[in-house]
């Protein structure tokens, strides 16, 4: 397991946030997850002292958030020299192709439809090659 990795998640809905955490946990990802309640909070962290050089991060971004939304945060990250290497996965409520297109155009690495079924989620994770990319997986269910 890549313990040097911190998962950051911007998600305004508490239930969704919990579900995402559990789904990650259920597929064996035990890394710390830092959660932000909206885009502004996430952006503040990314520009604050807590973001350490040399650590690895993965950012999960909900598209629709009040105030600063996920699309805007993504746009800012991708135009920031220091932050643009952080991999970003967009969290979508629907699989609306238009939204997905927009996110890819802005440079997101992948997208994840909000997790519903455990089986489906793990399949999705696998399909995306997420585990291979960021973590060492002990066990695939």
């Amino acid at each position, binding site marked *: 397991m890549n313990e040097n990795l911190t998962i950051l998640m911007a998600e305004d*809905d508490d*239930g*969704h946030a919990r*579900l995402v955490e*559990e789904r990650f946990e259920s597929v064996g990802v035990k890394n710390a997850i830092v959660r932000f309640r909206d885009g502004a909070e996430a952006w503040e962290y990314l520009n604050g002292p807590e973001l350490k050089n040399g650590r690895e991060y993965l950012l999960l971004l909900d598209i*629709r958030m009040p105030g600063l939304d996920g699309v805007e945060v993504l746009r800012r990250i991708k135009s920031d020299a220091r932050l643009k290497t952080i991999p970003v996965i967009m969290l979508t*409520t*629907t699989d*609306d192709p*238009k939204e997905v297109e927009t996110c890819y155009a802005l440079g997101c690495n992948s997208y994840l439809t*909000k*997790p*519903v*079924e*455990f089986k489906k989620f793990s399949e999705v994770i696998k399909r995306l090659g997420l585990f291979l990319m960021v973590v060492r997986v002990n066990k695939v269910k």
Partner: protein
Amino acid sequence: MGNSTLADLSGLKRRLAAVFFAVAIVLIASGVVAHRQHQASLRAEAAKMLLSIEQIKLEQLQLWREDRANSALSLLDGHKIAGYLRALTADPSDKKAADGLRARLRTFIERNGYQFAAMAGLDGKLLFSTGGKPEKMCPGVTSLIAKAKASGLPQLGDFYLHPGETTPHIDIVAPAVRAAPVRDLYLLLRLDPANFLYPLLQAWSAKGATGEILLVGRDGDELVFLNDLRHVKDAAMRLRRPLTAEALPAAMGLRGKNGVVEGLDYRGVPVLAAVGPVPGTNWAMVTKLDRDEVMKGTGTLAVLLALLVLSLLVAIGSVAFVLFRGQVEKAEEMLARLTDQVPGVVYQYRLYPDGRSCFPYASSGMEMIYEVTPEEVREDATPVFGRLHPDDLKSTGEAIAASGRDLSIFHLEFRVVLPKQGLRWRLCDARPERLPDGGTLWHGIITDITDRKLAEEALRKSENAVRNKLNAIMSPEGDIGSIPLEDIFDIPALQRMMDDMYQLTRITSAILDINGKVLVASGWQDICTKFHRVNPETCRHCLESDTILSRDIPPGEVRSYFCKNNMRDVATPLIVGGAHVGNFFLGQFLYEDDPRDIEKVREQARRYGFDEEEYLAAYDRIPVFSRRNVEVLISFYRQVSELISTLSYGKIKLARALAQSRQAELEKENLNKALAAKNKEMENFLYITTHDLRSPLVNIQGFSQNIQRDLAEIRAALAEAGLPEARKERTQKLSEEKVPEALGFVLESSAKMDMLLSALLKVSRLGRQELKPEPLEMGAMLARLVDTMIFQVREAGAEIKIGPLPLCRADAASVSQLFSNLLDNAVKYRDPARKLVVEISGETRGGRAVYRVADNGPGIAAADLERLWDVFYKPARAGKKSGEGIGLPMCRRIAERNSGGIRVEANPGGGSVFVVELPSAQGTEGT
């Protein structure tokens, strides 16, 4: 001469005036100085002469005195006298000696002109005398004797006047020393100065008619004139003046003055005099000339000098004036040249307090602006006011008064009626200035703005016409009679036609609207344009003739009448859309058989102030036609007019119809736009709503699954836990039946809701999708579609026939979706009782590609036909097979978004036919 001439003029005037005055002062001063110098030189000359005369006279006087003394001494020196005296001294009774002496003395007296001679002793007692009566000697004789004794020389006495005598005399005493050395004997001689001295004094050898020499002496406080005077008789020793007389030259001489003086002589006349004492006496001598004589000629000279100065001044003044005048003329010439370039007249207008007014200055443009010369109005502005249009006279007067009162800029547009140019528009701008007399002077410019006014008028008319036409067109219910004729007719075209006709026929023709306004006119006669239409009254006649006399002529008829100015007019009405909108006229002529009353014409000329001969000439030029020709012509014109009327009316009606149709089109476009906007709004709303609804659903579904997963663990734990049997049974029932069942419902419902939301999203997404219309090969597209559905089709045992299909122009992806939905439905809802056959055919009709998808399914119930296109509507017959409930609504949406439509019909052989219309690939839009 430069451009600065005008500005320099007043400077030049000042300079010239200054030079003139300087020269004048110098000239006058020189004249005065010359005059003074001349006087001074005359005076000096006279003084010199007077002094020399005085000198001579003094010398003569001295010589005379010495001569008198010497003659007395010479007498006494004679041998005989000495002998006689010695004899008599020795013997006073020596008669012979006495006789001898007497004879000698007598001879002496007579020879020398003495009055009297005597011998006296020291005491003055006469010892012996001869000549004249023995008179008393003068009172001073004893002192004279004493002086003679002391000096041993003869002594001359003073002037002396005996009381009762008229002339004075002078005594001379000489000591007879040598003749009578023994005794003191003195010879006394008396002389009459009138004989001796006066002639000497009176003799004036130099020039000068008024010259006079006076001897004066002192007697107490008085001055006494010693000799006879030219101007006062017997003045010697009688005429006296106070010694203190200031201006009297004689008094000055006695007071010690020696030289030339000016003063007033004994007569009170101004004189120039040389005065001085006479040596050896108490006298003073005055040698004088009247000042007038001295200065004689200076007066004339002064006058001549003055004349000279004056004439010089006049000459210089004239030169200056000519010079100035020349500049002024140049300036005026330049002003004239400048003002000639001004489009209009540059002027000064002066209003006197009594109401009179004039144009003190006006440039040559006056003749163009008012047709009067600047000279005609230089003293009186009345001719100009005669040119003003009667309707503008009052307002012009008021504007002048207001400008004069407030000294505000005068700015006015007004009309003038001119003999040559006729009615013209003028614009006047002027600045007023108050004059010392209380009057006002305006400096201004008047320009011709007729062209501008006409252009404005034309523009206004054309605007009105356009507006009226628009109004007429836009209000289909409007009365055609209320539209002005000029808005119905093509005026320029009519004008061209009538001009051509005039060239052929030479008959004046015109179209006037119902108010008498001339719209088209051709070939007007001079008598109308130059006379009748110019005079306000005859012009009114014209108007009345054109309206009143031509009123109420029935359509198709022709009326012939004399106009109020005694000419033939023929009129026929113009009817447009059943309304009388105007009249067609032939006029300004006479029939061959019409009476020609020259006297009446002359009277007309006199009454309205026309030039009689010119008016008559114009009358003679009125054309004459035969009744027959005129009738033929008006008949032709009437037909043409009716044709034009009908065409015009038809044009208006057509325009209205077009306008109405265009209006309907516009309304339809607007409605479509509104509809599209509403649709878009709806789709946006749908998208956001479904999106937001999906968010809580994620939680419901997600956590339900959590519970479902955790339930297995709970069940295992419960099985291991040692619970009482009854309890165990109960919990087992809960965990294995009740809770899974509840969870099943929750999950199933949420799945259903998820599906609904997805469907809604699809619909809304459709509205937001960008369409790319292109020509579509529909046959190929449908073949591909059927290929993708081949599994379903085979499973259903169905047959799909695709006939020849026309091309359409639409978005490929969405149209593919449309037909996919239709085929999907046909397969899904087929009649299980028979083999499904779907026939797809198509044709191009009216620029549209029409496709028919016919099935032999169960058909659609009449009740469902209307609601079939509603979202989520599910016909009862669909039963369990019901899908998302958005297939047909999406089909309709797709068809509409591709500018087409979809409808359903019953298939006569059972089943349904979905008819899809799309724009044809060949057809252009709107055909």
